[in-house]
């Protein structure tokens, strides 16, 4: 029971961070801060959601899988962020369409 409530709260917290990241993506003025908002907040949000699901999941393999998902998403999003940032840095005149 207490685990369920905790898990729901954690998922809600994760959703809140996703929302924040998206608002940041839409509202921030330049590419770097948009990237920053997106990756930071989304990774955190995903972390919270994974944590919430870990509390709700019954078996060990599922918990390991969830952890792996989080890790892979971290690697993926941070390197994507790095590549985009690198690209913007090296082609400064390139504004988006």
């Amino acid at each position: 029971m207490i685990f369920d409530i905790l898990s729901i709260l954690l998922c809600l917290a994760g959703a809140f961070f996703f929302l924040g990241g998206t608002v940041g993506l839409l509202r921030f003025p330049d590419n770097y801060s948009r990237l920053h908002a997106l990756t930071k907040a989304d990774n955190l949000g995903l972390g919270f959601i994974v944590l919430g699901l870990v509390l709700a999941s019954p078996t060990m393999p599922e918990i390991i899988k969830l952890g792996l998902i989080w890790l892979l998403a971290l690697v993926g999003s941070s390197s994507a962020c790095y590549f985009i940032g690198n690209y913007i840095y090296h082609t400064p005149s390139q504004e988006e369409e």
Partner: protein
Amino acid sequence: MALFLDILVAFSLVAIAWRIMRAPGHFQAVVLFITFGLLLSLAWARLNSPDIALAEAAVGAGLAGVLLLDTLRAVAQPGKVKTGAHFSWLLLPCLLLAGLLTLSIIHIQPDSQGLARAVEAGMQTTSLEYPVTAVLLDFRGYDTWLELGVLLAAVLGLLCVRRKKSIRAPLLPAPAEPVGRWLISILLPLILLVGGFLLWLGAFAPGGAFQAGVVWAAGGVLLWQAGHPSLGALPVSLWRTGAVLGFALFWLLAATALIRNEPMLTHPQAKAWILAVEYAAALSIAVCLTSLAIGGQKSEDRNQKSEVRDQRSGDRCQITNNR
């Protein structure tokens, strides 16, 4: 609640499709199309079809996205943004068509079981344990065989358009920064592993030759993006063998049945047969998809010269005067 989620997914699918059509920039349209693919795979996860969700995420959003972005980069016309649309009034007949089809959808009885019962009965005899894989490789193996043929034909068509013998493409510069190299060195083994896992899983759970092949193909494309010739490094004969292997094993399966005087594609119900075909199919799918992604590039300089010469001496039929 579930209904709300379905409506949300459905509505955003239509909205994104509308935006894809109306977006002023081509880049926007392509990025939106990738989003569309991801949402579509969400819809399929909602509809209890994890296989399709996996395949769509990998192909519709991943590989098609790479292909489209790559083409967009190659055909970009600087300083000339022209949407060049016409026939916007055609929207009306299209919506009319949608209305008509929707009217007939209302008459569908959604409780029809389709072939699910027949498949269940067939599962008693086949050696595979997962119905989707059984349908793909056993019950309707002929479709899968010809689908490998379509893939092969696409590669052949690519070579024909490019006038190349193999898919060797000009090398991209290797990433200068360490993060890129590091990423590839950890991602590639992971990709191999995940692909193998999906392939192994396919016999009894969601997964299988196609999903595995797509994941491996992603590895091949990644390798090429990292400045490696990828499949181009293989000797041509080996590459050719890889591309037809799955197709050829299916052929063998079909032909051996004839020797035993049974209808085509009948095989002894031993898992080894099917698994051999499945693994070869996964390999061929990976090779063909990678070839499709990297083989569309312009040829190297040396080849290009010979290409020009090719065209000049060309077929004899090219003596036709171009009007």
